[in-house]
């Protein structure tokens, strides 16, 4: 039986081992293939100087390179060298612009006339709206109704940058539904519209395209740490939801076998799942998920035994997703990336600790990586240093890089609310207001 033109071996480039692929409606296949072609020409081969223009705009508009900073007080606390990759200092306050600007520019090179994107917490939506304004492209953002209500400042930012914001009322009104609705728009308008997907998820070539735009994080970090510390780090930590900052941070380090790569997922309130109600009170897909197909790719998923996708949960909206990038699923299976998970409480403590010790208010997403740092390397409960090694992971080593994927201004309201509900060791007394 003859096969469609571009059929390929399972280990060739549309997939990462068994993961990835192009599980999309037929109507989208030509667009996905057109994007593959554009990815190869413009991104991989720098046709028409695309990558030169991208890097120049990321420097002038985005503020790259971002610093790698030694965290002095964290280094003292953990009795080892801790460096922070400051993606929170990128324009917009998160790593998201790396991808958004890359894709909007690519859409322009492809001759597309309109940009659509999904957003959960609003970080990818605001980055896309900024990039679209910067590059003069009409832009529409799909955002769940629940997320719109809890992320109002980001909705205003998108509107101020000239983007339309389309509320999605289906399901729980969060990221998963927003992606569904953006895919439906794309299936209708595919001929002139580019879908700027926000993470290393979706059908090939999105996972590679987004990774390549984000890989600047690891490339800079690798050079910077060698310059500052004179060697490669022992371990690199990044939080993982869909996985764009994770893969962006790890990618350049994957061949460096001496460097441990630790993906820190949201453990939410529990790792237990409620199968009957299709609820997972966490977003720990790499740690607990099973293989399946969602949003165009084979990957690890939070799903019921029947294959229904679970409603995930995390205190951090940006990690709250039932899937994960197929490349990370692959790297976890091969043992190159170690998945760990940190619950809401530890993440909130991580948030307060960095704010208090280093004067950096991190995103709640990033706070999970900081929560893990405390668990793996923090002082033992009896006050003595030298905590036993974490059972999920070998020693972090003497030189650690943590990606600060974004700043936490967007999270202040959530943090205040969630802190009040809890007795958190690292939280300050905020009773200065009449509440």
């Amino acid at each position, binding site marked *: 039986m003859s096969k*469609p033109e571009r059929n390929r071996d399972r280990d060739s480039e549309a997939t990462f081992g068994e993961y990835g692929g192009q599980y999309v409606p037929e109507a989208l296949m030509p667009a996905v293939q057109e994007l593959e072609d554009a990815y190869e020409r413009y991104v991989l081969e720098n046709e028409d100087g695309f990558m030169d223009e991208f890097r120049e705009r990321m420097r002038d508009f985005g503020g790259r390179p971002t610093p790698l900073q030694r965290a002095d007080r964290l280094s003292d606390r953990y009795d080892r060298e801790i460096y922070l990759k400051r993606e929170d200092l990128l324009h917009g306050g998160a790593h998201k612009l790396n991808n958004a600007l890359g894709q909007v520019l690519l859409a322009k090179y492809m001759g597309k006339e309109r940009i659509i994107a999904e957003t959960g917490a609003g970080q990818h939506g605001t980055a896309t709206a900024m990039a679209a304004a910067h590059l003069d492209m009409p832009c529409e953002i799909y955002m769940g109704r629940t997320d719109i209500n809890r992320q109002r400042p980001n909705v205003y930012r998108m509107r101020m940058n000239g983007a339309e914001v389309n509320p999605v009322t289906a399901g729980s009104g969060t990221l998963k539904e927003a992606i569904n609705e953006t895919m439906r728009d794309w299936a*209708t308008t595919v001929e002139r519209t580019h879908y700027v997907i926000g993470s290393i998820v979706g059908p090939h070539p999105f996972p590679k395209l987004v990774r390549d735009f984000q890989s600047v994080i690891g490339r800079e970090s690798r050079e910077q740490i060698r310059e500052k510390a004179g060697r490669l780090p022992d371990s690199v930590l990044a939080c993982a939801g869909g996985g764009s900052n994770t893969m962006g941070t790890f990618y350049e380090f994957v061949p460096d076998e001496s460097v441990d790569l630790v993906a820190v997922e949201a453990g939410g309130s529990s790792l237990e799942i409620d199968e009957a109600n299709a609820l997972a009170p966490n977003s720990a897909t790499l740690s607990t998920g099973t293989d399946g197909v969602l949003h165009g790719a084979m990957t690890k998923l939070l799903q019921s035994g029947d294959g229904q996708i679970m409603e995930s949960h995390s205190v951090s909206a940006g990690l709250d997703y039932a899937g994960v990038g197929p490349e990370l699923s692959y790297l976890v299976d091969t043992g190159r990336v170690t998945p760990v998970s940190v619950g809401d409480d530890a993440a909130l403590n991580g948030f307060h600790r960095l704010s208090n010790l280093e004067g950096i208010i991190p995103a709640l997403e990033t706070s999970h990586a900081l929560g893990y740092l405390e668990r793996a390397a923090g002082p033992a409960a009896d006050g003595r240093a030298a905590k036993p090694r974490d059972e999920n992971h070998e020693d972090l080593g003497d030189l650690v890089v943590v990606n600060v994927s974004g700043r936490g201004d967007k999270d202040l309201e959530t943090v205040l609310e969630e802190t009040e509900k809890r007795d958190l060791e690292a939280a300050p007394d905020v009773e200065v207001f009449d509440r």
Partner: protein
Amino acid sequence: MSEIEAAIRENHPALITYITAGDPSLEDTREYVEALDRGGADLIELGLPFSEPIAEGPTIQAAINRALDAGTTPQGFFELVDDLETEAPLLVMTYYNMILQYGPEADVRPFVERAAEAGLSGIIVPDLPAEEADPLRAACDDHGLDLVFIVAPTTEGERLETIMSQVSGFAYVQARLGTTGARADVSNATHDSLARLSAYDVPKAVGFGVSEGDHAAEIIEAGADGVIVGSALVDIIAEHGEGDAPAADALEAKAEELKRGARRGGGVDVPEPEQP
């Protein structure tokens, strides 16, 4: 010739109907399938609900939500199909993850085996393009099931050639870009697609947006061998409640209207029924 292909060719012009299994309950679905069968449906697609139906418009999304809320599972779905006795062959329409997860591991074969055992004649998977279909196609071949592919308005060139060379059952011609849902007219894309496909001697059925007998007539006249109607039927189900006998009657009447329209488009002289 497969059962599905025979059902289209022998009942030309054919009516293919879709409803979501479990909307509002599997018991109701049984009544509705029998009503559609009586009303003249030549093939009946049953949707097995999946939580992320990216190819569906609002009508079928809502039906899927109702079915999931009612607790519809693949096991319950297959038990329903086990008991159904219809003249029209049955197909299951569902998303790829539901097929993968039926067995203990991510593998398509247990689902296909069970589908064959239940007496289903074919499978349609809206998020499975031909490029990813090898494992499912092999399993379907082993069990004598058709794997029906969709041809979209954007399907062209070599991809169209290869998809049309592998048609199994019939070619599902997507009438327009976008998602499923009843529309007020027949799109130009339908005429363009049918013209593009006229050279291929395979049964062609048109879906996405077909809601009335007049649409069916126009589509058959434009060269299709069948029409596929889903959202217009789901609308009828949504208007009626659970265990509501008139819903079955209304579905039967709608199927009759659509079948009459199709036959009119095929040049068959059909007297309108006497008005009560």
